[in-house]
């Protein structure tokens, strides 16, 4: 199965309609992020200002129960601080839906003397605080105010992550256009050796943000398609990999100028699309996993850069693109699931340790890495194990940010 097939089989991350909705809400998110650091002086009930400050609810675990203080808060981000002074029989507080069916957040294992907490973005409604073992184990928490848009917009940290990601995507796309234009210039000058040095440099920008480009299905195929995708027809084989094939396999630049100009045109179209698009945290997270899935499949077996053997720098670009998402989400994850964040970082470090073996200066075609065909099967398998472990940990982010 080609990676393009895999892409087609995957559920769409973002439908055109979802894109439009996200674009509208992104304006609000940016507003929220912009004033997130100020102390929220406005009394308006707009979603942007509701997100402005996190409300704190204190819960003291006692033998009698776990009354929330206050018992009525405004919709948006709510920090729950839970403390157990001296209740031997009570050690946890859960926030559940009013019908008790679902646990939304919890702090467990609070023996006397310990405290902890959790944070949630809450929509208006009635919730239950549950503390098994207390005389009265269920207490009501009322959330008033207006329902905000997607819950993540009420979190300044998620909103900041999303706007940071928009910038990252735009910057990389713009850099790709510039560096592809340099590649085209070398091709136009019939300078094959220079073109070979410039090809992998342009590739890395795309490989950091590829899941975004995949939103516009045909554009991804026109920029990054392989011979077997979409139709195994040479005349429809366009973009980076057709140029790669000409330079390394056919050993000619005949027709490459025209091909490269077409590539730039498609990239410029992508640039105008990404500048007006916006994203949400779930898309960021699943996109990060997709990038690593790409690395684990199309890069490990050398499929993607089959003519040039420049797989290692684009492999690293996939990892970098995923880690950018993690870095942007870090302030949020640090609060929400610090152990997951630690695990992701450790597994990223394990990849870095592996990749260090293949670094070279200036490296194959100036990439900073050795030629991928020199990486043995046993080494590839080791790299694959590391990258799959990283992807597995990354795949758990989506739940945290949804």
């Amino acid at each position, binding site marked *: 199965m080609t990676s393009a097939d895999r892409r087609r089989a995957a559920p769409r991350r973002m439908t055109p309609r979802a894109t439009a909705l996200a674009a509208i809400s992104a304006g609000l998110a940016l507003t929220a992020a912009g004033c997130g650091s100020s102390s929220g002086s406005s009394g308006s009930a707009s979603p942007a200002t509701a997100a402005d400050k996190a409300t704190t609810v204190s819960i003291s675990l006692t033998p009698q129960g776990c009354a929330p203080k206050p018992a009525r808060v405004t919709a948006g981000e709510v920090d729950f601080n839970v403390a157990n002074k001296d209740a031997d029989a009570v050690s946890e507080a859960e926030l559940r839906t009013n019908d008790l069916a679902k646990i939304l957040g919890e702090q467990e294992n609070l023996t006397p003397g310990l405290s902890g907490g959790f944070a949630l973005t809450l929509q208006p409604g009635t919730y239950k605080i549950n503390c098994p073992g207390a005389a009265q184990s269920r207490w009501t928490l009322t959330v008033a105010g207006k329902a905000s848009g997607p819950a993540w917009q009420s979190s300044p940290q998620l909103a900041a992550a999303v706007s940071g990601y928009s910038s990252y995507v735009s910057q990389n796309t713009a850099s790709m256009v510039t560096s592809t234009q340099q590649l085209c210039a070398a091709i136009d000058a019939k300078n094959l050796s220079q073109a070979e040095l410039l090809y992998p440099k342009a590739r890395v920008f795309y490989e950091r943000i590829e899941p975004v480009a995949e939103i516009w299905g045909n554009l991804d195929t026109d920029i990054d398609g392989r011979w077997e995708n979409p139709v195994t027809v040479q005349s429809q084989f366009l973009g980076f990999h057709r140029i790669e094939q000409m330079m390394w396999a056919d050993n000619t630049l005949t027709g490459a100028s025209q091909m490269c100009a077409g590539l730039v045109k498609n990239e410029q179209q992508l640039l105008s699309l990404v500048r007006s698009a916006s994203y949400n945290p779930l898309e960021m997270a699943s996109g990060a996993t997709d990038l690593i899935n790409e690395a684990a499949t199309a890069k490990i077996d050398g499929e993607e850069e089959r003519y040039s053997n420049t797989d290692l720098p684009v492999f690293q670009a996939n990892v970098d693109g995923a880690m950018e998402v993690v870095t942007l989400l870090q302030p949020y994850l640090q609060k929400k699931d610090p152990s997951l964040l630690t695990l992701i970082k450790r597994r990223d470090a394990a990849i870095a340790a592996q990749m260090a073996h293949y670094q070279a200066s200036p490296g194959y075609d100036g990439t900073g890495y050795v030629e991928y065909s020199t990486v043995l099967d046993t080494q590839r398998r080791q790299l694959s194990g590391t990258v799959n*472990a990283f992807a597995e940990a990354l795949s758990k982010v989506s739940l945290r940010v949804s």
Partner: protein
Amino acid sequence: MPADETDSTPGRPGRPGPSRRQLLTGAGAAGAGVVAGGLAGYFGRGAADQAAGADGAGDSDQTVPFYGPHQAGIGTAAQDRLAFGSLNVTGGTSPAELRDLLREWTQAAARMTRGALVGEVTEPHAPPLDTGEAVGSPVSRLTITLGYGPALFDQRFGLSGRKPAELAQLPPLPNENLDPASSGGDLCVQACSDDPLVAFHAVRNLARLGMGVVEHNWMELGFGKTSSTNTAQATPRNLLGFKDGTRNIKSEQTQLMDSYVWAGAEAGQPWMRGGSYLVARKIRMFIENWDRDYLADQQNVIGRSKVSGAPLSGGTEFTAPDFATAAIPADSHIRLASHEHNHGTRILRRGYSFTDGIDPQSGTLLGGLFFIAFMKSPRQFIQLQQALAADALNEYIQHVGSAVFACPPGLRPGQHWGDGLFA
């Protein structure tokens, strides 16, 4: 007297027990739960029921208890299908991470073997906790058996002092040409079920839970059991077309199980007492050559009649072979492998037929016997395999993969794999 009253007379001699279908029908009526409970002896763990389940006919929702003095999947009546995973612990894994994984595996195995999913598949924004392919498939007597390979006891996890003296890579043995890609492993997971999908699902999900801590070394699927392991099971046939396991230890023979299968005080390591050593050998059969051999020679190679399974010395399948007669040739398989020929040594065989498809070079079938045997000490296998150096069957087979694992004893609820090892 009306007929139905006659039929309801309790304790009527010669009356067969109710069928499973009747029982289920009855369960629909009010209060029938009590009746069903009272009749559970007929269907719960009775020998007749085990036989039915063993043949894979009906009773596919039958479960094998996960907890017990020994791990399930050893003395358990051999299920029809196998998924066997050999895994290595990934570099840089800490002892605590390995121990946490073994705990997680225990919980997942306990759930899967009672027919539950590993975890929920309903959260829309998370990858489903269970991979899902076994949803709706009856549990089909799934057992999951864990083993530790010799390499696990190197310096990595501080376990070198816990290594049983018996646990080591097997020495070079006759008629082997081992492929490292089908050999060894830090850990093994043997999943057996009467449903291949259920067995595969178990190994897949355990490996997934372990991603980052363990990685696949190799994996084998077995599509037909080749040994009966209790007296209620009919003797199955291997790909040679012969009955296999006629003289196998049967799990009801508790004295033989204690003497030859379960590790005892001699294991040296308290955590291994009640466990068993698993020897896995991937044995390729050159079945095209075998199929061209004439019947009488095939029978001489094995030492038994192909159709009836009776020893060539006469009688029926379960007649003891008379090795005093020349009817069973000196180089026949059953003579050389017999306990009579090996100072009484026996093992519990629990293997499966396998195929890996077609050999790309020769175009012949890559398949044969994925031999699994359990024993008190790997020395038992070594002794038997050395005795098979002269086996006439060697012309038609070759051992291409090899691994040995120490399977710890069973668990009580609340205990976890690794508790004894890391204690």
